[in-house]
């Protein structure tokens, strides 16, 4: 498939931006899905050994890309231990 893309790009160079943008978009989608699958605290692949993965987040762990108003370095753990 990549050889086909390269040969088409040589024959019609104006297609190159198209291939670049489609490639970047597809790669971005795959990478984001991988991040969700591996790092999202709501996802549990092994329910027996990892039943509540969101409890593994500490008070200062940030999963979001950009937090508007929340200063994560100042948060503490609420709720008593038992």
């Amino acid at each position, binding site marked *: 498939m990549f050889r086909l893309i390269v040969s088409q790009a040589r024959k019609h160079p104006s297609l190159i931006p198209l291939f670049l943008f489609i490639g970047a978009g597809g790669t971005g989608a795959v990478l984001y899905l991988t991040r969700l699958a591996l790092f999202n*605290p*709501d996802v549990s692949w092994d329910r027996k050994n990892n*039943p*509540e993965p*969101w*409890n593994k*987040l*500490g*008070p*200062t*762990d*940030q*999963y*979001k890309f950009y*937090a508007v108003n*929340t200063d*994560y370095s100042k*948060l503490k753990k*609420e*709720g*008593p231990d*038992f």
Partner: protein
Amino acid sequence: MLNVENQKPPKGKWTTPPFDPRFPNQNQTRNCYQNFLDYHRCMKAMNRRGKSTQPCEYYFRVYRSLCPISWVQRWNQQIQDGTFAGKI
């Protein structure tokens, strides 16, 4: 099993639950459920050790603030019937 509906709610001022970084998004369903579970687990652990259950009130207040009353009633009913799905 502890009958939650017969307990009086704790006294004092109730402020709104603080930000929980485990649940940063708009959907707070899991926050509600987790605090409900934590309250019951805390009660069970404290009763087993014979200590006062006063620290568990924090979780009680949070889940009462966050959860719809119908959910709390349904879960309490399930706990009484023994059909509650969560691990307590």
